[in-house]
């Protein structure tokens, strides 16, 4: 059993270590030296400047785009999903169960399922190439609604709400003054899942954004791969984007998510189990 665990650990960790070490070497060293050796810090600087000079700081542009898309849709997701989850959990209205069932079904369907239909729709409405073609579909986040719903349904005593109504609070006041302040943990949870999912999303922006200035960083990585000599040694002979630069680009591209991941293991568990973890 110990052996299996060690093998698993090696399988999961080795590529990460390789990735972190690669930018410190020259392209030549990556091929010829021991794969897990460390080159030098100054080489990381070289790799960085090569990467930055690709298409005039395209990498920074892509990172900024990713931040706009993920950030913008995060805000919209929170604005729409928190009240919706609250209403589903603590109010009664016609169509509530239908809405809940449809939410569950779309939540379980893999996000890639609807990408092509969404593309066709966006095309129909002439939104191709606008930032809304990414932000709006990203903002639709049924899983977030479900998390909020579960949270309110299980942890906010209905009596408090009833009491507040008796006291003459309007529905909006109940939501804003009682429910919302209690929802902080679940908001963090939704934010984590939404941000990570959108930051790493590739398929939708790949389809709806034609212009490389608009790419988020994930699609940019693909561009970097296809227009550089890292996998086509001769075609891109004029460019300095080789394996170390590509490795550095990967690290930079996932850095925000990586940072979140460092602190979010428990969030993942509670989100997926939508519930209690002891200790």
């Amino acid at each position: 059993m110990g052996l299996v665990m060690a093998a698993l650990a090696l399988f999961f960790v080795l590529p990460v270590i390789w990735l972190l070490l690669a930018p410190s070497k020259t392209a030549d060293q990556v091929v010829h030296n021991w794969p897990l050796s460390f080159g030098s810090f100054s080489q990381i600087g070289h790799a960085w400047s090569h990467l930055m000079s690709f298409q005039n700081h395209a990498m920074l542009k892509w990172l900024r785009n990713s931040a706009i898309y993920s950030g913008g849709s995060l805000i919209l997701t929170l604005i729409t999903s928190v009240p919706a989850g609250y209403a589903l959990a603590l109010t009664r209205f016609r169509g509530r169960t239908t809405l809940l069932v449809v939410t569950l079904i779309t939540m379980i369907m893999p996000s890639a399922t609807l990408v092509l239909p969404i593309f066709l729709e966006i095309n129909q409405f002439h939104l191709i190439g606008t930032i809304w073609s990414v932000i709006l579909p990203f903002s639709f986040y049924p899983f977030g609604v479900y998390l909020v719903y579960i949270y309110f349904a299980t942890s906010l005593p209905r009596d408090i709400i009833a009491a507040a109504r008796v006291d003459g609070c309007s529905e909006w006041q109940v939501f804003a003054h009682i429910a919302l302040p209690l929802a902080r943990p679940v908001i963090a949870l939704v934010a984590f899942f939404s941000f990570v999912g959108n930051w790493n999303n590739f398929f939708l922006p790949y389809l709806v954004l034609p212009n490389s200035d608009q790419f988020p960083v994930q699609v940019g990585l693909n561009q970097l791969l296809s227009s550089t000599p890292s996998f086509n040694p001769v075609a891109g002979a004029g460019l300095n984007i080789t394996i170390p630069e590509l490795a550095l680009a990967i690290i930079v591209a996932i850095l925000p998510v990586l940072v979140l991941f460092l602190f979010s293991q428990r969030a993942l568990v509670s989100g997926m189990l939508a519930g209690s973890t002891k200790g």
Partner: protein
Amino acid sequence: MTLVAFQPTSKGAPSRRGVKPRREGGIASYFFVAGYTVLLVAFGIFPTCYAIYLAFTNDRGQFAGVNQFSKVARDYRFLPAFENIAVYLVMWLVLLVVMTVLAAVALRSWVRPGMSSLLRFLFYLPGALAGVASVLVWLFMLDPDVSPAGKLLRALGDNSFAATLNPSHLPVIFVLIAFWTGAGGWIVVMYGALNNIPDEVLEAARMDGAGRWQTARQIQIPMIRKWITYMSILAFAAGTQLFIEPQLLQTASLGRVSSTWSPNQLAYVYAFQQGDFNGAAAISIFLLVLGLACAGVLVTRSALFKLEDQ
């Protein structure tokens, strides 16, 4: 996190429906759900309907019956794409279920707590590289010239990147990539689920003389069976939608990997190279039905989701 769990094992609470129709929230409820409902209609329901509409018509807007479906199904790339996905899914599900359950049980009962939390963290970390990043990393892992496992690859007879990308290896490669990014998260979740089993239950088993294997087989695994099903169905549904992995390998291998390896890629080719949106929609419908079926089964047949409050 103070979410009070609904236990996977709990039976649906007695419904309030029928006791007394209550109107809490009234009109304001519609206001609360309005924004989300608009998004749901715009990016859930409408695209589905629009795809169905496109799949049943041709590019002149005429009703085409099932002709689009039979057209794409007769395409010489259609069956191979679905075959590829099928092979991949079988391997992926078996590996995922066996390894995550095994690892979770081991981490819960065999490994010291400190070690266990370190290992969980290490397993879980590659999840941050989901998507393009993971494929790029694995492109390097699969190239015997730069891979830290280069010796292993050569020992398996893969002396060059091109040899590693032999078509028959592709499902294994995609399974490895998916496992690397996805399994850690599931191991952590399974571990969490195992943690929900009260210590007294395990203690009682031990008193009865059950060994670790027996405890695992007879108590722990049955008690997280629902989560295993949940994971399998989600993994299955996601697996049918494979796109980035073969697409990037196609680019990196300079075309050795077919550009229509997976059904989603085929739909992409239909839309963007052949300009045939109706055919693309028909393929999407095939995939949509798969996704919907999985979701439907999970939502209605398992007690995992809470549709009524306690």
